[in-house]
């Protein structure tokens, strides 16, 4: 994972991407018990988001650096890395407000727990709901924080349903 951080930082330095933040399970693990995951998911901001092949320059840079596509991802050391342009106000904000963590001496941008929870709420699969519950149980985010963020991103109804189903016993 350190190699992933180094590659992303280098892409920022040379301007292939403007910003990035790790999200998904690998980011969740920062706050919770370890959970099994196969991929590293990364939000990215690119200089030309309107071009048809929005991730083209990113993949070119990776290949020139010796990292090759593998299915939907780029293999970086042990990790298939899935890059996702920050596609919505929620994910853009999650990326912009990410923490800069220290990964064995390498700075690594990671989405905060409250944004991880609300992104999971917006996706809405069973494993996303599990993620929200794990984040709540870890104490890294509160129901009130999630409620406020969900409200700002038009997910208040989804959060209400989640609370009724999983929190109100």
């Amino acid at each position, binding site marked *: 994972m350190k190699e992933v951080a180094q590659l992303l930082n280098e892409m920022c330095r040379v301007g292939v991407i403007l910003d990035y933040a790790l999200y998904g399970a*690998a980011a969740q693990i*920062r706050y*919770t018990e370890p959970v099994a995951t*196969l991929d590293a998911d990364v939000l990215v901001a690119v200089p030309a988001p309107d071009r048809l092949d929005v991730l083209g320059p990113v*993949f070119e840079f990776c290949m020139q650096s010796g990292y*090759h*596509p593998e299915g939907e991802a780029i293999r970086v050391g042990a990790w298939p890395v899935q890059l996702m342009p920050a596609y919505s106000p929620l994910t853009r904000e999650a990326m912009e407000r990410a923490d800069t963590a220290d990964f064995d001496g390498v700075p690594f941008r990671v989405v905060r727990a409250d944004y991880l929870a609300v992104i999971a709420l917006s*996706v809405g699969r069973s494993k*996303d709901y599990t993620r929200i519950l794990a984040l709540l149980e*870890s104490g890294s985010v509160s129901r009130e924080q999630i409620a406020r963020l969900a409200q700002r991103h038009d997910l208040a109804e989804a959060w209400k349903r989640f609370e009724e189903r999983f929190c109100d016993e």
Partner: protein
Amino acid sequence: MSDTQRTFERQAAWQRARKSLPWPEKIRMVEAIRDSIVLLRRSSPHSENLPSATPPGERSVASTPSSTQTPDPD
């Protein structure tokens, strides 16, 4: 409270304590079990499109992904 219940509670507390480990350490724990997960999943009938359990360079490179795909976070 039964001995079994007490054992479950001790195990649950021990598991919860792992959340306090440093993040890089937890990531290394996940890396250690990734290949086993991939191999186990490959043995299931619904195992298409799984990432490789083998190191880079030991398998063929797949096609370049399109920029319009929107994978969900794992």
